[in-house]
């Protein structure tokens, strides 16, 4: 499909936005809008995928829009094709899911108009080829998603979430604006091609890197600019949360790739350092805080932060290798990053869909009121299980492959000559492993509390399975998580062209290896075969089961739980989310959060109930953001006195200004 086709698609989405503004019966509107978005994004996804796989050559196009003398420039290269595919696939899944989920929306008129606009904006960001169009669509993306976050504005807390979100977003945009301004330099031409051409005579690359890391990173959720994310993502309707977490963060990563890997030019040796550091910190902080949350969607949001951290670790590695001229290693690291981009978009959408399903079935987001849902919502439970295993980076699912590749890249780091990197990278590796382990714990907690055990509320007790659309959407994603996990070679080969676009070289073609195995560098060094592992596990498990059931007993008796002889009918005695997190809280308190537990135990004979109180403090907010906010308000208060002067005092202001300027004249001229 020619580039104009994609733009027409975007235009169609915008038309859907307009259509959503027309008055209509709500059901019809839901079907029309989501159906329409589904159709359009499906076409876009298909053609983007084809563009990527067929390796068709790049397309560029310029429209007489935007800044007049510059025009609106668009380009579709391998990188944008890949991200476009990710975006639109997520969009397809979300729209399909929303066909079912959207029916439960109370105020659809607050969601429907902005949903297609959001999709259109994300597509445009990826297609943009000059700074203006890029930032315009970038900000449109923020704006429309902000509107979606505000769709349930009467729910307490959502308004604040929306506010923090939109402010952080626009600060990030300003950072990118400054970055582009610096890159355009005195040339003053904002077309990416021109910036690329003048990459050589650029002097302030370090500043630009910092700005890009801040601008794109704050949108992606890098610590310490992540505070808006766990507020905003859960506030939106679930299919939108899925898009924001699974897709929009990827668009942010794309922004970083486009600026730092593509436009900014050859990296300096130290570029890797900040990226690695920020990525590692983000991964650990996200995983830790996710483990302490009770709100299901909030847990997912924090795990998004963690995964973004993983992606940026890989990106940092790639930068470091590239700066030292190790193309193959850089390609490996970049492949890991992009692979994780794909994976995260898959399982994070799946998990948010699942949370939406729970919301529909129980009306609960708090883990503490769920439980025992696997028996009541078997399909949802199964798919959520797949998602949890995949995101915990466990074989044979896809999450493991990308992290494995990242580890392989880390193992190559001794070749680097810089001591700082030598010292840093092992620590980063440890933090990556720590984050993975914490994530596993977090998802044991999520699935164990929400789906296993006994129901903790009537809502959970009376839950029923959700509609077909949601199930199909989740099922598809689950299957894809498995497929990309067992057939990683295909994905790696598909990523080849864009890796070589950004790095110059790509990983060796994996398809020659037998048994669909992958070997990043050499088979003698390390290799992994998801398919075989999967087959081994399934066969041996089935074998064992079959043998035992066949030759030994297959009888089983249903009985009340034994519980060491102290059975308790009350489901309140189960482990709660808080209690599950307690060991980790105790061990890691102080890293990004501070937990304080106070126990009030009445003396024997005292009738009053014992009280256990848990306080969690988000240190990043308390020490990073609160001071800024209070400073602003203090200054505002001080200046505000000027609103209440008398006329004479105002006159004296004027007089003072006059005298000052006259003095200036007298002295300086």
């Amino acid at each position, binding site marked *: 499909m020619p580039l104009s086709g994609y733009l027409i698609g975007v235009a169609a989405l915008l038309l859907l936005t307009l259509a959503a503004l027309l008055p209509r019966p709500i059901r019809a509107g839901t079907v029309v809008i989501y159906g329409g978005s589904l159709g359009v994004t499906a076409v876009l996804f298909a053609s983007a995928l084809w563009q990527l796989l067929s390796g068709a050559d790049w397309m560029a196009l310029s429209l007489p829009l935007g800044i007049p003398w510059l025009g609106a420039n668009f380009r579709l290269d391998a990188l944008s094709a890949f991200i476009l595919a990710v975006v639109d696939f997520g969009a397809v899944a979300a729209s399909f899911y929303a066909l079912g989920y959207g029916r439960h929306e109370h105020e659809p008129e607050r969601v429907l108009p902005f949903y297609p606009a959001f999709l259109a904006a994300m597509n445009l960001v990826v297609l943009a080829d000059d700074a203006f169009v890029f930032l315009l669509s970038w900000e449109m993306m923020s704006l429309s998603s902000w509107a979606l976050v505000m769709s349930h504005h009467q729910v307490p807390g959502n308004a604040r979430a929306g506010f923090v979100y939109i402010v952080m977003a626009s600060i990030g945009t300003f950072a990118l604006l400054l970055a582009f301004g610096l890159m355009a330099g005195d040339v003053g031409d904002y077309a990416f091609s021109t910036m690329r051409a003048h990459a050589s005579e650029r002097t302030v690359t370090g500043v630009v890197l910092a700005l890009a890391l801040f601008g794109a990173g704050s949108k992606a959720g890098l610590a310490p600019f992540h505070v808006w994310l766990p507020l905003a993502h859960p506030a939106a309707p679930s299919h939108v949360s899925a898009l924001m977490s699974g897709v929009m963060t990827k668009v942010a990563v794309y922004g970083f790739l486009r600026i730092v890997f593509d436009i900014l030019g050859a990296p300096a040796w130290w570029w890797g350092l900040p990226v690695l550091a920020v990525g590692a910190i983000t991964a650990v902080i996200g995983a830790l805080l996710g483990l302490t949350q009770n709100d299901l969607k909030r847990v997912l949001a924090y795990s998004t932060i963690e995964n973004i951290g993983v992606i940026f670790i890989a990106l940092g590695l790639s930068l470091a290798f590239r700066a030292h001229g190790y193309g193959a290693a850089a390609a490996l690291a970049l492949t890991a990053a992009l692979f994780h981009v794909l994976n995260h978009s898959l399982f994070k959408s799946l998990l948010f869909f699942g949370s939406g399903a729970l919301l529909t079935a129980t009306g609960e987001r708090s883990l503490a009121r769920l439980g025992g849902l696997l028996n009541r919502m078997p399909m949802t439970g199964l798919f959520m299980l797949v998602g949890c295993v995949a995101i915990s980076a466990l074989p044979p699912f896809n999450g493991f492959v990308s992290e494995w590749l990242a580890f392989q890249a880390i193992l190559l780091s001794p070749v680097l000559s810089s001591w700082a990197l030598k010292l840093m990278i092992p620590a980063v590796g440890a933090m990556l492993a720590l984050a993975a382990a914490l994530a596993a714990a977090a998802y044991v907690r999520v699935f164990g509390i929400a789906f296993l055990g006994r129901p903790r509320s009537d809502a959970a007790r009376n839950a029923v399975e959700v509609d077909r659309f949601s199930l199909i959407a989740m099922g598809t994603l689950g299957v894809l998580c498995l497929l990309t996990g067992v057939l990683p070679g295909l994905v790696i080969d598909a990523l080849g062209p864009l890796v070589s676009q950004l790095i110059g070289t790509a990983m060796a073609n994996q398809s020659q290896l037998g048994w669909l195995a992958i070997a990043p560098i050499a088979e003698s060094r390390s290799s992994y075969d998801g398919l075989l592992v999967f087959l081994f596990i399934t066969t041996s498990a089935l074998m064992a089961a079959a043998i035992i059931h066949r030759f030994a007993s297959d009888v089983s008796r249903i009985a009340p739980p034994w519980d060491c002889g102290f059975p308790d009918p009350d489901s309140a005695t189960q482990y709660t989310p808080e209690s599950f997190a307690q060991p980790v809280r105790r061990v890691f308190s102080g890293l990004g959060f501070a937990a304080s537990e106070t126990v009030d135990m009445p003396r024997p004979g005292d009738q009053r109930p014992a009280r256990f109180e848990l306080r969690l403090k988000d240190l990043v907010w308390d020490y990073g953001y609160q001071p800024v906010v209070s400073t602003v308000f203090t200054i505002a208060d001080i200046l*505000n006195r000027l609103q*209440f002067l*008398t*006329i004479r005092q105002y*006159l004296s202001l004027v*007089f003072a200004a006059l*005298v000052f300027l*006259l003095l200036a*004249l*007298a002295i300086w001229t």
Partner: protein
Amino acid sequence: MGGLYFDIAHLFAGGLVLISFILLYQDRLYALLNVFALQAFVLALSVAWQAYVQDAPHLYITAGITIAFKAIAIPVALHRMVSRLGVHREVETVVRLVPTMLAGIALVALSMVVMLRVTGSADPLAREDLAFALSVVLLGMLMMVTRSNAVSQVVGFMSLENGLILAATGAKGMPLVVEISVAFSILIALIVIGIFLFRIRERFDSVDLQVLDDYRGESR
């Protein structure tokens, strides 16, 4: 144009500055008004002189307006108002007199400095005139910001405006001077009327601001 003309114009201009100082020095309303009337009179004289020097008859109109309006009508009106409003005679100053005078002197010096930087291409008469005019303007403003009483502030504004007229007439062949002086007279008339209308507040300084805040829905 001979030295005599120059000196006389100079005399008038300097006289205006001097009177501005006297205005600053006054601490009684009636006295203040009288001094202002004097300033207006001197201004009129200097305007008339300029009219004669530049033989620009229309300037006589300005002079006439000045005499009739500033030297007579306004002071009288203000006299009546002061007595009507029973504004206590004391001119309460925000800044004490001595610092005010010192500031005034500094201002005059400043205006001299900035004005004398101007190259002599403009003829000296105009330069001097402008220098004095600027000092009169600044002194008038100083008066406005150091006095908190409505009447004295009006007086300050009017002396400021005297400075403007001085400058305008000093600028040889300046068009629209008459119109400007008329416009200013209207302006001043409006101000005076305003004081009459809003006698609720006897000073520009709005009365209790907290009250107004309730109207504004503003809060400190």
